């Protein structure tokens, strides 16, 4: 997994490892696609370099993306629970997980 200096990182690339700041706070999850917004955040946090996934943009077929965008995360969650939400326990789990995403509390 090559380490790219931040000035060589471009939107569309995908992280090979989680990006954390000097205090250990998670900034970008592993496997996330770099967007212009993420790149700006990394620059503002003075991240010097990022581990980039070789082979570029797309993840292997058949596996989901790591979702960083809250709307995409909510959509992925709704899709995952679609066929099991008839069960009240699963519905409660879905609602609790959705609420976390809406509140910005993500793993």
């Amino acid at each position, binding site marked *: 997994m090559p380490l790219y200096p931040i000035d060589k990182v471009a939107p569309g690339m995908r992280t090979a490892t989680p990006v954390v700041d000097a205090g250990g706070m*998670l900034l970008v999850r592993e496997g996330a696609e770099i967007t212009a917004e993420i790149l700006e955040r990394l620059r503002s946090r003075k991240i010097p370099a990022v581990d980039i996934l070789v082979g570029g943009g797309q993840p292997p077929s058949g596996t989901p993306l790591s979702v960083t965008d809250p709307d995409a995360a909510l959509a992925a969650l709704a899709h995952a629970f679609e066929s099991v939400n008839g069960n009240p326990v699963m519905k409660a789990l879905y609602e609790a997980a959705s609420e976390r995403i809406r509140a910005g509390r993500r793993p």
Partner: protein
Amino acid sequence: MTIPSSPGPDRLRRVVDRIQGLPTLPAMLSSINRLMVNPRTSAKEIAQLISSDPAITSKVLRVVNSSFYGFPNRISTVTHAIVILGFNTIRSIVLSTSIFDALRKSQPAHGFDRAAFWRHSIGTGACSRVLARKLGYTALEEFFIAGLLHDVGKIALDSYLPEDFAKVVAKVKDSDCTMLVAEEAVLGVNHADVGGWLLQKWSLSQGLVDAVARHHSPALAGENLKPAAIVHVGDMLARALQIGSGGDRRMPVLSEEAWSALGIGADSFPALLAEGSDEAERAMVFLEFAR
């Protein structure tokens, strides 16, 4: 509700008989087990055994000094680690790092994202540990390992039956079904069956074997219903938290028996998700061993 039934020895045998050249676990693990059954064994004796392998020693020290355990002062010797964390925890760390080591060497087939897989496995381990703590268990590491290894059958299939597993991955993609459903359709057995078989082959405890083999069918786990139920729900929590991916985009069906066995209410989910998320973040130290 559809619960996968046991595939029966013949169907499982037909699949696992084609799995050749499985890695073995280090002999050190059976030596540790032998020492641990002797009540007179001292921390120093186990420490000496572990310290005889520098690679395992360094991994144990890396884990015990990580935020997963969160000790304020650095632990610099295995003896110190055993005194603070206990025999069982240290054995669990040796076991999990050894299994990562054994499986990391196998080559992945095209289409299965191993990095996402291990993140999901660690997330499930962390959520299972959180559930076990809530239910008053003390041997929390056993539950972490059971969660960590719950999908290990997928790695065995990916590594040793790559053509069949590629068909499973393709079916998941085409039908947008769970891995479990695709495996049953393509192979007639599922990753839980294969994982249980693998752990049995490695002579791991029956509790661990049942928790892994029955994590999609806890009602069939007999006396190990509760451990299997913990991993079953731990998997659901990790999926709800979107930690990594086990290879599909759909939630599996909840086992009513498992949920009843745990005796917790659905109003616990917000707290369980919060704790599971924090614990999973700390547990990601194990990810280094999967690379």
